[in-house]
């Protein structure tokens, strides 16, 4: 999956570079609580295990993963739509 340019009217970004488990998911969860259903969040990670685990956990919580991309070495962007 690829995150396309242009995220609609509102795109919220959460920079989690330097964060490890479980703070990656704790902070993602807290940020999503601020959003309305259907709004999207782009999360930046540099911790490789988080790139697999956070999207899996988000899906388990009912959210939709819209895309994952790796713009550079050891940097990933995950786009999620709040349930």
């Amino acid at each position, binding site marked *: 999956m690829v995150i396309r340019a242009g995220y609609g009217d509102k795109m919220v970004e959460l920079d989690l570079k330097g964060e490890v488990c479980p703070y990656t998911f704790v902070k993602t969860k807290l940020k999503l609580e601020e959003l309305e259903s259907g709004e999207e969040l782009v999360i930046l990670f540099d911790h490789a295990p988080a790139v697999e685990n956070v999207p899996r956990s988000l899906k*388990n919580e009912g959210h939709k993963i819209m895309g994952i991309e790796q713009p550079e070495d050891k940097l990933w962007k995950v786009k999620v739509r709040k349930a």
Partner: protein
Amino acid sequence: MKLGILLTTSPENENTNTVINISRAAIRQGHEVSIFLMYDGVYNINNKEFAALVDDRVSIAVCAFNVEQRKIGKVDGIVFGSQYDHACIASEVDRLISFG
């Protein structure tokens, strides 16, 4: 019954043998078993007898952060998960036993 097990010691500890035996006995009696490994407990995935529990339908997840810290390779059938997986196990099981 759903049984959860947290194991935080390495395979040299007798806890490993106890967890293997409890898991096998629980499965034999028709219970579901989910194991979460963290701290030095992640080394147990390199123990063949322990890792073979997945063949007995025991669900095993490890803290991938601890695995990365200890430079351990992935093992088929074991979920390289997160503390969220542990929270799910704790939330869903009828009993959770800790071996540390």
